[in-house]
């Protein structure tokens, strides 16, 4: 029975891999060698050929969707919007120019008077709401942030727990500089800042004010109280950054997870949920980091097992580190993510046999599915099996310490390498290029953390 299930899962796994290959082939995204390999298979496997045909056929159907053309009025109204905005932007710097021509002097004078009157009237109209904006500027700028923060206790605990991704906190100082003006300000300073704002910033502020006013009175009062509490907190700058980071993190999770989390009122349960969502997120990232053959269904249990393994081993590894390396690691990484960094560092210094003993290997097999175990068993010998297992463990560690890399980030990294190292990446297929460059990036990144 279990053999049958395993065969079915194998077949499904292979079918998914074949589909990805066929789609990439149709999109011209395979290397010459990969295309040639697939074409050989296509010539001998009629079923595969049939799948390729239906994928192409269904794709071609999309061509028959009608395209509605946009009429001239759309273009015109967009251009008008742009002009209107441009006019508004330039209003402040606009200077009234007088003509030297005497024959139009009277007309110009009249025009200037009317412009002055309109301007004065506009300023008068704007003064009241601007005064209100200036009085509340400090609060209004971050009022939306308080919408996702239930209490100061929540922020304090979030700060201490370190549950948010490490890389975000690493940029803490930079973020503090750019995100929020936190020092309490006088109304005249606020007014000056309002004057210096461009149209987009003003509109943004207005929309924050509007959304705040749409909230119930109780919620408005709660946010104001939270703001006052936060401003008086000894760590208010740090907590504000943590709040910003939490809001940013919320935007990276699924909508259903967000609704569940924001709907929870109990502080302990909120943190349980955050930990669960983070763990799911890490598992998803693990699937994206590096090209491993670990089946998708194994990602989460395997990731949890690695968490236990690394925690158990961390102390032992720390003791083996040279003192200066240990100090560097302690200074540059958070307590939570330190074991993973140390484990990754050790994967470069010790052999797979030294890192994975027989007992650990057996433990690992017990959490893996039969598909994953088959992949390991297909390796030539025990050394290769341990090597593959170690690459899975290392990737699970990386998923906890690093977000996945985009090709743009890889390009940027390549540019930072000395020319002789850049040459190493020439003449590689796109897939190899990404894989090798990614490995180099992570190795450099981990080396930076410890040296």
């Amino acid at each position, binding site marked *: 029975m279990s053999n049958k299930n395993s065969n079915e899962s194998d077949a499904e796994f292979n079918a*998914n891999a074949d*589909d*990805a290959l066929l*789609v*990439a082939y149709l*999109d011209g*995204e395979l290397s010459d060698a990969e295309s040639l390999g697939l074409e050989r298979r296509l010539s001998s496997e009629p079923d595969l050929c049939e799948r390729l045909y*239906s*994928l192409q*056929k*269904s*794709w071609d*159907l*999309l061509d*028959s*969707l*009608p*395209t*509605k*053309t*946009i009429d001239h009025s*759309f*273009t015109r*109204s*967009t*251009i008008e*919007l*742009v002009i209107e*905005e441009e006019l508004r932007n330039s209003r402040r710097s606009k200077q009234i120019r007088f003509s030297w021509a005497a024959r139009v002097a009277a007309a110009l004078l009249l025009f200037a008077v009317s412009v002055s009157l309109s301007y004065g009237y506009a300023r008068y109209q704007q003064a009241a709401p601007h005064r209100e904006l200036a009085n509340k500027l400090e609060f209004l700028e971050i009022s939306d942030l308080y919408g996702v923060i239930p209490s100061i206790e929540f922020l304090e605990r979030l700060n201490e727990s370190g549950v948010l991704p490490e890389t975000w906190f690493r940029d803490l100082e930079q973020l503090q500089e750019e995100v929020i003006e936190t020092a309490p300000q006088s109304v005249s300073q606020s007014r000056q800042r309002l004057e210096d704002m461009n149209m*987009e910033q003003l509109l943004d502020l207005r929309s924050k004010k509007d959304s705040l006013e749409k909230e119930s009175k109780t919620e408005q009062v709660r946010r104001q109280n939270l703001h006052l509490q936060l401003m008086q907190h000894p760590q208010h700058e740090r907590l504000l950054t943590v709040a910003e980071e939490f809001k940013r993190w919320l935007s990276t999770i*699924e*909508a*259903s997870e967000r*609704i569940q989390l924001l709907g929870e009122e109990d502080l302990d349960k909120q943190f349980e949920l955050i930990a669960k969502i983070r763990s799911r997120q890490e598992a998803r990232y693990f699937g*994206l980091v590096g*090209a491993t053959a670990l089946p998708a269904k194994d990602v989460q249990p395997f990731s949890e097992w690695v968490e236990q393994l690394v925690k158990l081993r961390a102390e032992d590894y720390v003791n083996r580190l040279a003192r200066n390396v240990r100090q560097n690691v302690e200074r540059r990484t958070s307590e939570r993510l330190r074991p993973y960094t140390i484990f990754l560092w050790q994967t470069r210094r010790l052999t797979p046999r030294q890192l994975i003993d027989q007992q650990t290997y057996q433990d690992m097999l017990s959490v893996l599915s039969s598909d994953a175990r088959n992949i390991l068993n297909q390796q030539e010998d025990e050394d290769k099996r341990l090597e593959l297992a170690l690459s899975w463990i290392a990737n699970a560690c990386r998923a906890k310490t690093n977000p*996945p*890399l*985009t*090709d*743009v980030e890889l390009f940027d990294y390549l540019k930072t390498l000395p020319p002789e190292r850049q040459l190493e990446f020439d003449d590689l297929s796109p897939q190899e290029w*990404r894989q090798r460059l990614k490995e180099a990036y992570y190795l450099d990144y981990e080396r930076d953390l410890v040296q």
Partner: protein
Amino acid sequence: MRRYQTRLRSIMEHLVPGSQQAEDLTQEVFMRVYRSRKTYQPQAKFSTWLFTIANNVAHNAIEKLSNRKEVHLSETPSGTFPTRALENIAKDASGLMPTRVLARNEQAEIIAAAIQSLNERQRMAVLLSKFEHMSYVDIAETMGLTTQAVKSLLARARVRLKELLSPYMQNGRDHFEMSQDQGTGQSDDGD
């Protein structure tokens, strides 16, 4: 703007409900492009930059919509907006098949519903790949994903499209082909 407006609006129409909203969002994209024109780096592809903005605008709109309506995410994989289920459209149409081939507008409706049954990210990747002919690298840059992620996203999306549309392309010459032939033959009766 003229070069991209129709293409952009077509993509928006598959991402958000209602052609008026699609038009508003297209306009919003152009406004944002105008506002951030100074940050555009000429070495980057303009189309990638434009569709990155479009992706953000559409994503925000979909999120706002889903927050406002508190939609049941389990009901639609995209969790975006209620749409006429493909199954219903297919059911309507199957009553008429195979004796009557699908009319051109029914065909478009079924294809559009198939696209809408994909989740938000799959849909965007499909639209960029199909209608903008973007490479995986460009789609990845536009959507802020890895190329590997785009590859599996597109594979899953295309298999799903194949499954949904396969009833209409059986027996060699499919119903859609027949429908198209009829359309070009100036006959819409279909009998």
